[in-house]
C-alpha cells in the first residue's frame, strides 16, 4: 500500500477582506483569521479517502511556516491524517519563502519518508503561484499530474483526469508521482468530534530547513505591495461605430 505525503499551507481565510499594510511591504496578517488553504483541504481529503479505500497505508501532512502552522496540521490530523511534520520557518525567512524552497523541502521529506505520492493543492490562495507541485516533481524526477479532478489507481500506475483550459485531459502516470488537487476532485469532510479527540494523540514532528539541508535564502525581493487600482467608471456608447472608433483611438484595433 502506498505512503502519501500531503502538503498543507496556513493562509489567510478565504472569507477575510485583505488589507495592504501602510508601509506597502505586504498584507496585514496580525490578528487576521487564518485557515488551511482550501485546495490543500481537498488534497488531504483525497489522501484520507485513499486510506479508507486501502490504497494508502499512512498519510503524513507537512506544513512549512511559523509556529501557527501547527494549527493547520492539527486540522489535517482531525480529518484523518496519521502524523504531521512541521518545518519551522519564521520571521524574515518566512516572508521570502517561495515555492522553490518548499518544493526542495517536500522532495527531501518525500525521500526520507519513502513516499509514493505527494498530493498538494494546485495553488495557495495567497500567492496563487501554482508552482510547488510542478517544481517538486522536477526535483524528484517524478511524473506530475496537476489540476487533478479525478484519480484512479491501477496496479502500478494512476489514471488522472486533469481540468485544463480546453476541457478534460486524462493521463496515466507511473508511481511514485506528484499530484496537485483541483476544486472538483472531492468535497472535504467535516472533522468529526471523535476524530478531533483522536487528533490530540497523533504526533507532530518538528524540524528546520537546515535539518533537511535546504537553503531558504531569498531568491526574490519584495519591492512593493499595493491595492489593485480602483475600477474607473465605464462609458456607455451609442452604437457599434462609436465602439470601433474608441477601440482604434486606444490602439486596440
Amino acid at each position: 500500500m502506498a505512503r502519501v505525503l500531503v502538503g498543507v499551507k496556513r493562509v489567510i481565510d478565504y472569507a477575510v477582506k485583505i488589507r495592504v499594510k501602510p508601509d506597502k511591504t505586504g498584507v496585514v496578517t496580525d490578528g487576521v483569521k487564518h485557515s488551511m488553504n482550501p485546495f490543500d483541504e481537498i488534497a488531504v481529503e483525497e489522501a484520507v479517502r485513499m486510506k479508507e479505500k486501502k490504497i494508502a497505508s499512512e498519510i503524513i501532512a507537512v506544513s512549512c511556516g511559523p509556529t501557527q502552522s501547527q494549527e493547520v496540521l492539527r486540522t489535517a490530523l482531525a480529518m484523518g491524517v496519521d502524523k504531521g511534520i512541521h518545518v519551522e520557518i519564521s520571521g524574515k525567512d518566512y516572508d521570502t519563502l517561495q515555492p522553490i524552497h518548499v518544493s526542495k523541502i517536500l522532495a527531501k521529506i518525500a525521500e526520507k519518508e519513502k513516499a509514493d505520492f505527494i498530493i498538494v493543492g494546485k495553488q495557495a490562495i495567497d500567492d496563487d503561484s501554482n508552482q510547488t507541485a510542478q517544481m517538486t516533481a522536477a526535483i524528484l524526477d517524478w511524473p506530475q499530474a496537476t489540476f487533478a479532478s479525478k484519480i484512479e489507481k491501477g496496479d502500478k500506475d494512476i489514471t488522472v483526469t486533469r481540468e485544463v483550459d480546453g476541457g478534460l485531459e486524462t493521463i496515466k502516470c507511473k508511481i511514485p508521482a506528484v499530484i496537485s488537487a483541483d476544486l472538483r476532485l472531492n468535497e472535504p469532510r467535516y472533522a468529526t468530534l471523535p476524530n478531533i479527540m483522536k487528533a490530540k494523540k497523533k504526533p507532530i514532528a518538528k524540524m528546520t530547513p537546515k535539518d533537511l539541508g535546504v537553503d531558504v535564502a531569498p531568491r526574490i525581493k519584495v519591492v512593493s505591495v499595493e491595492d489593485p487600482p480602483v475600477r474607473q467608471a465605464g462609458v456607455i456608447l451609442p452604437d457599434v461605430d462609436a465602439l470601433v472608433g474608441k477601440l482604434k483611438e486606444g490602439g486596440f484595433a
Partner: protein
Amino acid sequence: MALFNRLLPKFITTFKARGIASLAALPETHQLLQKTCRDFAEGELKPIAAKIDREHLYPKEQIKKMGELGLMAVAVPEELGGTGLDYVAYAIAMEEISRGCASCGVIMSVNNSLYLGPLQQFGNKEQKEKYIRPFTDGSKVGCFALSEPGNGSDAGAASTTAMLTGSSYLLNGTKSWITNGYESEASVVFATTDKALKHKGISAIIVPKPTAGLDLGKKEDKLGIRGSSTCSLIFEDCKVPKENLLGEPGMGFKIAMMTLDAGRIGIASQALGIAQASLEVAVEYATKRLAFGKP
C-alpha cells in the same frame, strides 16, 4: 449541579495548563470543534432551517449527520459511544448549531442534557448499555417527560403515577409539552410512586417508545422552532419493567432538578446562537437597505 461539576474539571485542567495568557482563547480541540460545527451549520442547516420551520418537518437526515459528527452525545464517555468531551465543548457546539437552525439545536440539547444526562449520572450498567449507546449516533433520540398539564413550574406536584405491581410499574397520567415527543424512542418519565411523600415520592422511570399503553398527543402548533416536535405523552395502564427505574425510588425530583440545571447551559447556548444569527441578519440588512438615500 453535580452533573455539571463532574464534567467541568476536564476543561479546568486544560485551562490551567495553558496559563492566564490564553484565558480568552479556547483550547485547540475546542477551536477545531467550533470550526466543524460552524461549517456544518452554515453548509447543512442554514439552507433548510426556514423550510423545516415553515413545514413542521423533523430534520431526520441532519440529526443523523450530527450524530456522525459526534454532536448528539458530546459529554458521553467514548466507552458508551459518545464523544467524551466536556460541557464547554457542548456549549460551543450548541451555540454554533443553533446559529444555523434552532430546531436542530433544541433536538440536540434535549438528547444530550435532558435524556443522556440523567442516564449517565444515575443509570446502572444495563440501563446505560441499553438506553445510552443506541442514542449516541443520531439514529435515535430520547426525551424528558416532567411537565404536565397541571404543573410546569411546580414540578413537585407530579400527578402522573407509577404503581409497582409485581415485576413492573404501571403508569397512568399525561405529560405535556415534551420536546422530541414524536420522534424519540425512549423517554425519562417522572411519576409519583408514593403520593404521601410529596416531592420525595417521585421517581424517574425509563420508558421505551413505542410501548403498549403509551399514546402520543397531537403535535403542538408552535410559533417557532417547529422542526422539533412538542407533544403530549398519554399513559394509560402503561406497563414498564421495574428494572427501568432510574436511580432509587423517590430520587425523581432530585434527578429532574439536577438534570435541568445542566440542561440550562445547553439551552442558554442555543439562545446565544440564535441571538448571534439574528444580529448577523439584522446588521446585514441594515447596512444594505437604503432609506433616505443612505444605508
